[in-house]
């Protein structure tokens, strides 16, 4: 027990008596923690955006209208919406397909509303109003979302499996057409994959660079005191007896450095990010790491890295 206090006292003594190298370590830790603290939420939010885009790509299945007797009408003919029982049956079938996340029904009426909403934005809602009487030429449809963009093809194949003659045949006579906007899907898939890769590589490099920077600074500060270590060994100090004060020192450097960085991050968050949040969709922080979690992670990583950096660097000078 007395030992622990001795090591803490020794570690703090070094900080007090030769603050310059420790100060360098603290500044380095603070700067890297600051960069990481900014980078982590930014990368997360960028990744969230690409996920959002990927999730918007799906299949749209257009349904044929039916005539008064319930038979599907050929393409282009306008009739009634299929009866609810048939639609529910089809929905159940679609949802049973592997990799289908959701199948959302859009009725003829909803389609008309969506169209008029869209036209209203362009001030051309008169086009909908010009539709004669109750006639609604818009087909009902299903929006099918695969669980991942990569599974789009297999879902489509399951909806229109090859029939007896080898041609794709829909699983229901109601299905008129399947639109998977394949070109868009491929473009988006390629682009988002690239973005993910870039983000991954950038964050990996940043992490390595910051670890090396911290380790190197600590190394320098210990190198400056290698003679001290030599003397300690000469009077018969065990390796851990020498190591603990250095690790305490590293812990304190990490703590102070991360504390400074968290202070700046908090300042930046309240002064810059929070006021902009309402105006910019991109800054929307839903799905990014919470501030307190981020602070804890930074604190833990900084302390662990600087303490371990000290301990490992010392190994060179502790060889017997």
């Amino acid at each position, binding site marked *: 027990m007395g030992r622990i206090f*001795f090591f803490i006292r020794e570690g703090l003594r070094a900080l007090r*008596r030769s603050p310059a190298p420790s100060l360098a370590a603290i500044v380095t830790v603070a700067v890297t923690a600051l960069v990481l603290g900014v980078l982590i939420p930014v990368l997360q939010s960028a990744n969230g955006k690409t996920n959002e885009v990927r999730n918007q790509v799906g299949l749209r299945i257009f349904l044929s209208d039916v005539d008064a007797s319930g038979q599907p009408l050929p393409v282009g003919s306008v009739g009634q919406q299929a009866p609810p029982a048939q639609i529910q049956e089809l929905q159940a079938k679609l949802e049973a397909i592997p990799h289908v996340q959701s199948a959302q029904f859009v009725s003829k009426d909803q389609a008309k509303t969506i169209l008029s909403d869209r036209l209203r934005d362009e001030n051309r809602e008169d086009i909908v109003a010009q539709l004669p009487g109750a006639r609604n030429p818009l087909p009902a449809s299903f929006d099918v979302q695969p669980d991942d963009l990569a599974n789009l093809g297999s879902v489509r194949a399951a909806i229109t499996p090859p029939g007896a003659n080898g041609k794709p045949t829909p699983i229901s006579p109601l299905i008129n057409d399947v639109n998977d906007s394949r070109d868009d899907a491929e473009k988006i898939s390629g682009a988002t994959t690239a973005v993910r890769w870039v983000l991954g590589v950038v964050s990996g490099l940043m992490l390595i660079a910051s670890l090396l920077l911290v380790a190197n600074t600590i190394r320098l500060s210990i190198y400056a005191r290698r003679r001290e270590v030599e*003397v300690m060994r000469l009077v018969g100090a065990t390796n851990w007896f020498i190591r603990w004060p250095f690790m305490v020192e590293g812990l304190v450097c990490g703590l102070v450095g991360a504390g400074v960085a968290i202070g700046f991050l908090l300042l930046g968050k309240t002064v810059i990010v929070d006021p902009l949040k309402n105006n910019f969709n991109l800054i929307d922080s839903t799905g990014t790491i919470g501030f307190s979690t981020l602070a804890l992670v930074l604190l833990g990583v900084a302390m662990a890295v600087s303490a371990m950096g000290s301990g490992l660097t010392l190994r060179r000078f502790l060889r017997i």
Partner: protein
Amino acid sequence: MARRQTQDVLRTRQRTTRRPEHLTEERARPPIVELRRVTKVYPGGHVGLERVSLRVDRGEFVFLVGPTGCGKTTLIKTLLRELQPTEGEVLIAGRDIGSLSDRKVPQLRRRIGTVFQDYKLLPNRSVYDNVAYALQVIGASRSEIRRKVPDALRLVGLADKVKNFPDQLSGGEQQRLSVARAFVNHPPLLLADEPTGNLDPNTSIGIMQVLYRINRTGTTVFVVTHDREMVDKMRRRVIQLDSGRIVRDQAAGTYTSDDESTREFARRVREEMGLEGERSAY
């Protein structure tokens, strides 16, 4: 105070002389230092020590002399197990230190006080703390530290500089401090590698007096030196090394052998004039 010191020393001696059962009566009190045909060849092929055998008994005062590069420092380093000999055995108090595990090496070093030419003090500790560190390392209690540190500082004459830092001391004072640290836990063996190498003659005498005083308490003192005057004045055992070999081992000797041949004299003159490179001609 002197009495307590003597008691401490007695205690130390009792501890070190506790005999292991398996030893015969004859070997019951092994010499404090024993080298058995120790050879050290450095990776580059340079021979540091060549079949060196020597015995130093408890309580002796030994000078180790010889030209630069003759293997004196190599010898000191093998005693501290900073270096492992290529061949042969090094025994401290009868124990082969070559067989010590790395974890046990600090224990060995706690039993050997060391003094170096460059003092090797901890720069950011006060005089008191520098000495106290040697006791903290061995896990001494606070009361023990409070008792022993002032004793050691008084012994070397630094009792009034307790709060100073090493850079506020003169060279002689720094060396005294280093001696106090080496002696504070009363090791049975004290190694001094050129303790007066950086000091003027008067200061050197002071250091030697302290070492002598320490020797009188029963500690074996092993001094590597170039200080001719000191060796000649003290008339102690002198071991002379040359090219890694012991060329002289003389009780109550002088820096140079009494029957120095003309050739040896010539060599010495050349060395002292800084022409050591030509040594290889012999």
